[in-house]
């Protein structure tokens, strides 16, 4: 059961990572890479590393997305390339 859950979460990481690379809209790509971080945090939690999961969820999913979105907005490249 746990292995199945971990596999599903890993598929989520892969899928959202590929989406982050392939999407043309930078904002959507950013959200997708944030989703990859969130899946990574869940997988850390499932692998019994709650400390790392917390840091990943707060920094990887929250703060870095925020910084990237502000950078995208500042450079005015929010729409389709």
């Amino acid at each position, binding site marked *: 059961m746990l292995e199945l859950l971990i596999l599903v979460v890993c598929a989520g990481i892969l899928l959202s990572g590929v989406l982050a690379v392939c999407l043309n809209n930078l904002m959507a790509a950013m959200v997708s890479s944030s989703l990859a971080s969130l899946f990574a945090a869940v997988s850390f939690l499932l692998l019994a590393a*709650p*400390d790392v999961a*917390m*840091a990943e969820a*707060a*920094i990887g999913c*929250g*703060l870095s997305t*925020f*910084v990237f979105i502000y950078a995208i907005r500042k450079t005015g490249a929010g729409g389709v390339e």
Partner: protein
Amino acid sequence: MMKRAFAVLAVALMALVFMGVIGDYVELQALRPLARHYVTEVPAQLGAPNVVTGILISWRGFDTLGEVAVLFMVAASIGLLLKKDSAGGAAAGGRDARPPAGEIVTTGAMVLLPLIFTFGAYVIVNGHLSAGGGFQGGAIVASGVMLMLVASPSATLNTALLGVIESAAGVLYVCLGVLGLVLAGGFLDPRFLPKGQFGAFISAGAIPLISALLGVKVGAELSVIIDRFRS
């Protein structure tokens, strides 16, 4: 065409390396000797039920100090790089021209902010008992600050005060390290305070103190970085 072939080749090589790593994977039936040493020695020597934070703050304390110093340098250089930019934005009326956040964001922030800050404080001060610690708690507090700034775009953060708080926390952190050097076994040794009862809130020597200082420092640093990017 050539480029694509190189990309495929790189992916294939990567897959080969990965196969070598995970191909002969067998699940461990017992802890490795080093892990077993840590798992038995952290509760016995430091009195901290949470092994990870015990290692991070005592034996790997110097490393943690380095991490915080790197964060400090990042915050300082971002401030240096984005300073002129923000002054130009303020001159053009940048702060007032920002549109207000939507009602959903504002209401959600009002509901969630107290919870996020309380959870962050809990994670910081309970680092020696449950999962978490100064670094994680500081990041959670900073994400709360981020939500606050998103919900009220016209609000300003007192970065000067945050800088003073952050520097004071850093100085106190190093002072605790030197106290450990003088009174106990070495730099950042938390055993100069009594170990206390195992599992109690006030226990594990100076680990909760160091953790709290770390949390304040990391939270303040990340908040300053966020504010710099926003303006």
